């Protein structure tokens, strides 16, 4: 059994190397430089190796960065630039703050509280995540920061349900709740104009094509498809992921009992709660006061360390955070360099440009589907919007697609495609780093959830947009 697994890992590793070599030694297509093509070879092979189970994403990433520097594709300063990226640092610090919420018991208390209100079923717990996230989302332009708020709640819910990554009897329950958190962040970002940094950027680009988007018009356009997706996806994912426990009629009463047993808030819980409330308030007002989201997270972590809620011993145990930091910074950088070398723009131009001669509806569908699929190559939603949104909008309008529905649909897609890969958005990382879900499961579930959202937005959202957003 073990020998067979080792053999298949070797085969998968060999296949990954073959993918890298095949692309590397194939002449680049007209219009692409050799360095861009070879960097794509490294990136594609790294992602391929994770999908086929040759390596964990961490191993694939460190091999990739070593290859890019040692072959001279990237200078060291370029290759390691992601390690100084503010958003990636925010994820690391949010991980540590979330650990404080769990350590002091506040996470479990919050979990019991939510279970006491919504815990008659696992589906109810999932909806509670979507509800909380959907309500706070318009105040959080950084969906990564919002993940820092939602993640401790999801951990608390999982632990209140007895689901820990090392408990095989309840692992799928934890996995379902974690993936619900990821999908919720992606859909709440699509619901509100101000719930994701790239939404206003996209609106500014759309304005240059004559499309005006405001907070109100965005909400009206997004409301029907997004709320439907929020209603459908928890149910469909429940059927697909089949958590061990689905009906828990006694759970609310048990949760109330557990809350009583916990007694009043401890000193540590009070400190963490106060720190967290201040952090949330600062994150929500960061745009207004020009505050940096990462600095706010550092401030919160500093307070938790200074008050002794977190100790250096706690930090030393967080090796997973270091692993996440390294692999995400590497993939973020390689994807960004591919974009700077013109690879993303080239691919988008070529794909979009191949649609001449089709009618407006096929063009619309093909553009949206291609736009979503191209997110396999991106490690940032904002980078994707800046690289491809204008190209796809421009091509669609020239081929007769109405600009307003196309612009809105592409920007909604820029949010819901975040879960297509574990690295598709920095907001995913807190959940993917929780160890409830393997990398293989994340790719599979990410593809399923993205297709489900795509169907909802195309089938139900398009007629709605034609009706309200002319």
């Amino acid at each position, binding site marked *: 059994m073990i020998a067979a697994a080792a053999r298949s890992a070797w085969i998968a590793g060999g296949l990954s190397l073959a993918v890298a070599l095949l692309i590397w030694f194939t002449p680049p297509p*007209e*219009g*692409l430089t050799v360095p*861009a093509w070879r960097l794509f070879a490294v990136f594609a092979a790294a992602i391929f190796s994770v999908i086929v189970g040759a390596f964990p994403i961490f191993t694939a990433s460190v091999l990739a960065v070593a290859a890019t520097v040692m072959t001279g594709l990237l200078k060291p300063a370029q290759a390691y630039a992601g390690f100084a990226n503010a958003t990636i640092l925010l994820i690391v610090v949010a991980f540590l703050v979330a650990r404080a919420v769990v350590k002091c018991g506040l996470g479990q208390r919050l979990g019991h509280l939510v279970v006491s209100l919504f815990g008659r079923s696992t589906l109810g717990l999932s909806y509670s995540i979507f509800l909380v996230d959907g309500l706070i989302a318009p105040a959080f332009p950084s969906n990564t920061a919002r993940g820092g708020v939602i993640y401790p709640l999801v951990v608390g819910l999982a632990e209140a349900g007895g689901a820990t990554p090392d408990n095989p009897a309840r692992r799928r329950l934890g996995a379902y709740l974690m993936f619900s958190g990821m999908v919720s962040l992606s859909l709440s970002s699509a619901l509100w104009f101000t719930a994701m940094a790239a939404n206003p950027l996209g609106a*500014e680009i759309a304005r240059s094509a004559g499309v005006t988007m405001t907070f109100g018009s965005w909400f009206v356009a997004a409301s029907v498809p997004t709320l439907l997706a929020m209603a459908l996806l928890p149910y469909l994912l429940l059927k697909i992921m089949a958590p061990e426990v689905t009906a828990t009629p006694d759970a609310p009463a048990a949760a109330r009992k557990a809350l009583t047993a916990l007694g009043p808030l401890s000193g540590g819980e009070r400190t963490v709660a106060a720190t967290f409330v201040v952090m949330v308030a600062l994150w929500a007002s960061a745009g207004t006061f020009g505050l940096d989201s990462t600095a706010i997270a550092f401030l919160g972590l500093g307070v938790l360390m200074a008050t002794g809620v977190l100790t250096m011993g706690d930090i030393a145990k967080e090796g997973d955070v270091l692993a996440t930091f390294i692999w995400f910074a590497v993939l973020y950088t390689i994807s960004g360099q591919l974009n*700077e070398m013109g690879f993303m723009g080239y691919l988008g*131009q070529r794909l979009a440009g191949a649609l001449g001669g089709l009618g407006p509806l096929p063009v619309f569908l093909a553009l949206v589907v291609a736009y979503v699929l191209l997110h396999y190559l991106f490690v940032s939603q904002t980078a994707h919007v800046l690289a491809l949104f204008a*190209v796809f909008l421009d091509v669609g309008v020239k081929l007769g697609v109405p600009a307003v529905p196309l612009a809105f649909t592409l920007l909604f897609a820029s949010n819901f495609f975040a879960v297509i890969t574990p690295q598709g958005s920095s907001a995913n990382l807190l959940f993917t780093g929780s160890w409830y879900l393997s990398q293989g499961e994340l790719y599979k579930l990410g593809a399923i959830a993205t297709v489900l959202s795509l169907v909802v937005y195309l089938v139900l959202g398009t007629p709605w947009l034609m009706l309200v957003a002319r």
Partner: protein
Amino acid sequence: MTRTRLLGLVLLALVAAMAATRVSGQVAPSADWRTFDGTWSASGQRQALPTVDGRPAGTFQLSGAIALTSGVGLSRGFRGEAIGYDNGAGVMVGHCVWTDERGDRVYSQLRSETVAAGRLVTGTVTGGTGRYTGLTGEFTFEWQYVIEGESGSISGRAVGLRGRVRGGGRAQ
């Protein structure tokens, strides 16, 4: 030599010179202007410094994909890199390099009022390498949008990239 014969020789020389000029034009097609058309999506960094009149001066560095939809003798796409200086008072100058899949390059100089949406940029092609050696020409494009992000990041898309070139080798 009689006057008639001299006149005949002069006329013959004139006709020969005109013929030579015409033939020369026919056998050297690389001297013809060839037009091209495309777009450029670019991202990079901008650094700014305040000036006495309050308008910041700055440098920028951009790179991204140039996609050409027409243009005889040029690749269908290039990696476009530009570096420039905007004095904050309405003058931007820069240098641009286009690199194709063979590594052959087209060099140009850029000039415009400033780097901002709706601004027209003019470029002068000053030469190249490989199949673009000796290439000269000119082009213009307009920034469809220019968006500044965090930490000095900048993204933009140039549309209406149109121009003409002559000289250089012909692409296969």
